[in-house]
């Protein structure tokens, strides 16, 4: 083990985070390296200084009561049997929304088709009525008796005029 590797492991060594084998290697290097031993001492001194001079907060008396009041009124442990992870809830919500939109669109299409059928059948019915309506001939001098009836086709006659024909 060289000094660079030892220096990198010193904090973990101080914290007892190295394996037994690695700790032994560091310990062995420290035994023969005054520089790394000094580095270890310096790190230890810093750790002690920080720990000694770290301001610590104490819980305020009655702090538990505040927590307790909230967990007994607001919350209860979630029942595991029906608990659904949040990501599944999101996916299920998206699916439900898509289903609602899909069904709505199908219903809209259905209504449109029904309206078109109704319109076509009405149109056919209207045309049939028009075709069956009586054709009335009148001279144009007398009053048109069907003037206000939209279902009666009115044709004027132009007796005696050879230059005028019906439809012009």
């Amino acid at each position: 083990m060289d000094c660079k590797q030892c220096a990198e492991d010193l904090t973990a060594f101080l914290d007892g985070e190295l394996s037994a084998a690695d700790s032994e290697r560091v310990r062995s290097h420290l035994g023969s390296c005054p520089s790394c031993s000094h580095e270890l001492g310096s790190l230890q001194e810093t750790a002690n200084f920080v720990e000694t001079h770290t301001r610590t907060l104490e819980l305020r008396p009655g702090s538990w009561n505040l927590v307790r009041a909230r967990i007994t009124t607001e919350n209860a442990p979630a029942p595991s049997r029906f608990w659904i992870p949040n990501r599944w809830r999101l996916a299920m919500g998206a699916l439900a929304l898509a289903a609602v939109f899909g069904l709505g669109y199908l219903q809209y299409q259905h209504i449109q088709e029904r309206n078109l059928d109704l319109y076509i059948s009405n149109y056919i019915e209207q045309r049939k009525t028009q075709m069956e309506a009586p054709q009335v001939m009148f001279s144009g001098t007398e009053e048109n008796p069907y003037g206000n009836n939209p279902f009666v086709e009115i044709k004027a006659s132009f007796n005696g005029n050879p230059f005028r024909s019906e439809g012009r």
Partner: protein
Amino acid sequence: MTKKNLNPGSSGIDPAGLAKLIRKAKKGDIESYQEIYEVFARKVLNFIYRMVNSPEEAEDLTQETFVAVYEKLETLKDDSKFEPWLFRIARNFVYQRYRTRSPSTVSIDALDENGQQVTQLADTRKNPDEAFQTLELEDVVADVIAGLPEKYREVFTLSALQHLSYQEIADVVGRSLPSIKTDIHRARLEVRKRVKEYLKV
């Protein structure tokens, strides 16, 4: 020298006893949950305090953490991982609240509306002179920790002050063990650089 020798656990409760309390709390036993609170609340409070640098915010977030923990306790699969899970939730609350703004610099002596100190400090001072010097050095250490980059501050606090193992810290912050080991080492070097001139005091 090594914190890992401090069995049973840095929280001072044996794992079997803690597992039993967790099992009972999962079934809705409030008294068991109170015991868990009494074991861990102070640690969580101080961790959050280091992160947000405000006693009243730390107290508020600690309360939020323990309400959320009770609510989600049923989802904890491995009871032996309770402590890192707890700190992870606390950390999430810290980041939720402080994502868009830098940590507060409210004074430790902040008073509430009744003129009382919001959160009590542990009193370890002996005489006025000593107390004055201790206070000054406490300010130095607090400033040094608060001045660390966020990434280093949380791993430093969790390792040097809350004495979590590196694996537990990796679980809390969601990073790999080698990355945690490197960051803790760099954080310690940074702290040493900043407190060097005070070491002789």
